[in-house]
């Protein structure tokens, strides 16, 4: 590769780093000049983050939040694929379930938190239920739309080819809907993470959300900001992994 | 869509009080001169020369069809003529002025009508877009847009959106948009290629009529050799890789032309045959 090519290739990274540097510098100025109450300087935040990264607490909280988010996403994926395929492939099921689904999916999932806490208490179970409720709809709707599309495009072909139901499922529907499913899963995981963190902040005494809230209540501001930054990193990592998976599965 | 063949005699045409007449200063204009033009798409993998040392010219009021094998550079040529892309070498002049960007007296009808219309505007507002861009006062736009729609025989669709129109209607709408700003040159990129035969005949005749009435200069790219002979005063044949003019065929069929009669004339058949052999030999 020639010099110009290398420079062009590096450009986004250089620009991006410059952007982050400007942002951090702005933050440092705001903190140093005390323009806003309770904003610790970045240096303190990063040293608090370093401290937490060497301790056990951050990793335990991260493990908890990630595990709960993953469970919620997994459960939502299973339910979403089954129900989505059912309403996508059968007009009868669509009529039976469609309007109920279209009602439930617009209920803000945080609204469920108080009710779920009443029924299930302050444990991981409640987190998983709320996370699953939030994560369900993107998977379900994507799978339903994709299988409806496959059905209308290939139904005649599969009849003429005399494919049996099992062959039809595995050689037409599964490959035809896998890309839409993974897109749904990516959106679902992001939503599940938001709700899991929210319920941790509000009620369940575990995970990253709890750590943010706890540090905030104790007015350990650098630690609180460290946890916010760390939660963002976890979200970014989660999103990148799923995006890479999606790209891999969608590759022609 | 109801396929309505355009009346070839003036009798059946709708007339209106304020017609779009070619303004006197525009009437004489519309010449195009291409000399020794070359072009490569920048950054394309192989940096292949798409057009090389291409020359031809179009007289004001002339109807020229450009034919050539697929991918030979016909669309690129129209983009050069309209100033959408700058020529790499050689010169392009419109009315004696070197082309540096889209000239104001030029209309363009794109190949892909579904993508060239503004989906968020209804028919009459799409036509008005051409007038807004040309700086026509707001109060005159609606009436001029309606006239343009009538001219392409689309009178009753004002409020339809492009997505609600058939391909033929969309292409009429695109022509109306290009005509509304009273250009003296019309560049058309395979405008009727995606239409069924009956619709295409109707649009060809509508176009010829507009061309005759407004005294336009038309450069019309097509794949269809019949269409080229039927419409043109002259057919320019391009060869591929890099594009160059290999042949220019004068068409001296009587006008006004008629879909049935003209296509049955021995001269039409002979020209078509000659054109076909020229292309086959490339």
């Amino acid at each position: 590769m020639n010099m110009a090519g290398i420079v062009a290739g590096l450009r986004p990274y250089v620009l991006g780093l410059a952007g982050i540097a400007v942002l951090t510098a702005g933050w440092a100025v705001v903190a140093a000049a005390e323009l806003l109450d309770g904003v610790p300087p970045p240096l303190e935040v990063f040293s608090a983050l370093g401290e937490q990264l060497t301790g056990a607490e951050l990793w335990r909280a991260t493990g908890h939040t990630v595990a709960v988010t993953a469970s919620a996403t997994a459960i939502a994926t299973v339910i979403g694929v089954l129900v989505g395929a059912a309403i996508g492939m059968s007009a009868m099921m669509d009529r039976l379930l469609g309007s109920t689904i279209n009602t439930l999916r617009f209920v803000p999932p945080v609204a469920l938190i108080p009710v779920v806490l009443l029924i299930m208490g302050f444990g991981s179970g409640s987190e998983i239920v709320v996370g699953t409720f939030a994560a369900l709809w993107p998977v379900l709707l994507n799978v339903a739309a994709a299988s409806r599309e496959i059905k209308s495009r290939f139904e005649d072909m599969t009849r003429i080819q005399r494919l049996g139901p099992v062959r039809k499922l595995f050689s037409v529907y599964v490959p035809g809907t896998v890309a839409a499913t993974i897109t749904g899963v990516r959106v679902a995981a992001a939503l599940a993470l938001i709700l899991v963190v929210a319920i941790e902040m509000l009620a369940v005494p575990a995970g990253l959300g709890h750590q943010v809230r706890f540090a905030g209540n104790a007015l350990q501001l650098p630690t609180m900001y460290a946890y916010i930054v760390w939660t963002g990193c976890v979200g970014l990592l989660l999103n990148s992994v799923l995006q890479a998976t999606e790209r891999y599965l969608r590759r022609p | 869509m109801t396929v309505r063949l355009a009346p070839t005699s003036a009798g059946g045409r709708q007339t209106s009080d304020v017609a779009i007449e070619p303004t006197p200063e525009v009437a004489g204009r519309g010449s195009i001169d291409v000399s020794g033009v070359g072009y490569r798409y920048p950054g394309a993998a192989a940096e292949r020369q798409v057009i090389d040392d291409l020359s031809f010219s179009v007289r004001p009021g002339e109807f020229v069809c450009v034919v050539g094998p697929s991918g030979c550079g016909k669309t690129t040529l129209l983009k050069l003529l309209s100033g959408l892309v700058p020529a790499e070498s050689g010169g392009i002049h419109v009315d004696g002025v070197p082309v540096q960007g889209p000239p104001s007296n030029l209309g363009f009808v794109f190949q892909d009508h579904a993508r060239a219309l503004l989906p968020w505007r209804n028919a009459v507002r799409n036509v008005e877009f051409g007038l807004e861009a040309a700086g026509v006062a707001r109060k005159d736009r609606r009436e001029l847009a309606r006239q343009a729609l009538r001219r392409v025989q689309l009178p009753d669709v004002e409020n339809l959106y492009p997505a609600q129109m058939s391909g033929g209607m969309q292409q009429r709408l695109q022509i109306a948009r290009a005509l509304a700003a009273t250009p003296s040159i019309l560049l058309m990129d395979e405008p009727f290629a995606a239409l069924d035969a009956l619709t295409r005949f109707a649009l060809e005749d509508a176009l010829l009529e507009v061309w005759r009435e407004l005294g336009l200069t038309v450069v019309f790219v097509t794949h269809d050799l019949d269409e080229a002979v039927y419409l043109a005063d002259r057919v320019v044949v391009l060869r591929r890789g890099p594009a160059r003019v290999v042949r220019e065929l004068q068409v001296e069929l009587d006008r006004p032309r008629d879909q049935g009669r003209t296509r049955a004339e021995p001269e039409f058949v002979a020209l078509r045959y000659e054109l076909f052999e020229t292309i086959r030999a490339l």
Partner: protein
Amino acid sequence: MGRRDGSGMGHLANVLIRLVLPAALIGLWQVASTSGWVNPVFVPPPDRVARTGYEMLTGGDLIPAAAATTGRALLGLAIAIVIAVPAGLVFASSRLADGLTYPAREFFRALPTVTIVPALMVIVGPGESLSVLAVVFGAVWPILLGTILGVRETDRVLLDVARVHRLSARRAVVKIRLPAALPQIMTGIRISLAIALVIALVVEMMSGHGGLGSMVVEARSRFRNTEVFAIVAVIGVVGLVLNALMVRIERRTRHDVPA
């Protein structure tokens, strides 16, 4: 998921069939709670929830609370639109601005926005501005992304149309790029609306500063469980109504799909 049936009888049957599942679920809930499968203290039967809800609606603060929550969410959303659409235009048209902000944008988009609520609470203190600021912060990102993608993916042919009509760059933005991006911007706004409601509720739950969120937390802390269920039902209805409105607005801005 709407499929139309032509005849009147067919329509009636259709409506009935759609009601089968909700009716069955509510019936199950009623039976479970009155026959003691679940503890009726924690899960009150639906008829009691409905009665309590009705009393709260006619007598109490439920409607003002619902209005407060909705108002905060919508105000925050409106501010987010005003910020995100112009910013998205800038990022979509300037490679420098885009490159500088890309990693930061990705970070904030991936950050579960509720986590910044405690930080905002320290900075601005509990109150109206906390709610609105938090909503703005959460709602900005999807609209920003929608605008950037929509503007950037404007069809090349449309850009050529703008150029042969000799539009200046600024007029091309107003007349072509922005309207072409509108469907994607509207999708972003729809996603942001859901986020705005969630954040408005979370802030209320955390700060206890009025609205349905603090109402539900208070009812729970006083073990008024029937009220909890009733308020949650009202939150659901608010979400439904706002989304139905949004879908309608979104549909009215779209002309590229035949009606």
